[in-house]
């Protein structure tokens, strides 16, 4: 995964964990302009049996992405909603709830 690619190539890709569990589909990509870096993947369609959220979309942190090709593979982890306090930052992204990783499943 050592490649420069157009950001739009991520739109619509399916996301699976490295254990083969379906996570969701990429709707958009969240950019951190200060760090000039991708902050996360915004999923509109997501697997509610592994992500505990009622939001119309969720944001996965980009650091858990392992590889990008025909699909996206992320680390198999549990996710929780970011606390109200730390989630203020992402209020501008309407309809998406930012998740953070708690425990890695081994």
């Amino acid at each position: 995964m050592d490649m420069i690619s157009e950001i739009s190539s991520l739109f619509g890709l399916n996301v699976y964990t490295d254990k083969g569990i379906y996570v969701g589909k990429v709707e958009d990509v969240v950019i951190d302009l200060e760090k000039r870096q991708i902050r996360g993947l915004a999923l509109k369609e997501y697997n509610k049996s592994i992500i505990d959220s009622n939001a119309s979309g969720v944001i996965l942190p980009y650091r858990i992405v392992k590889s990008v090709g025909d699909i996206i593979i992320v680390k198999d982890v549990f996710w929780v909603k970011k606390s109200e306090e730390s989630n203020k930052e992402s209020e501008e992204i309407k309809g998406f709830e930012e998740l953070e990783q708690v425990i890695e499943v081994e």
Partner: protein
Amino acid sequence: MILAKSLSKKVVLLSDGTVVGRVYNLTVDLRTGLLVDLIVKPQTEIPEIVKDDGLYVIPFDSVKSISDYVVVDRKRLRR
């Protein structure tokens, strides 16, 4: 924080007010997530901007700010 799709078609200006064009795409390093270049559909001929396949390729380092417009620092355009 912004969504990538919200950047699409934003007007790109140089710091001296010159209109460059509209945002067409962004390139990223998928491994690190770092933004590499802003790809812009040209509206004005600006000799110091690198062109590839008819589109301007502007290193993200020279992007000064993004809100209603994308502002590029003219002095930092040369790689």
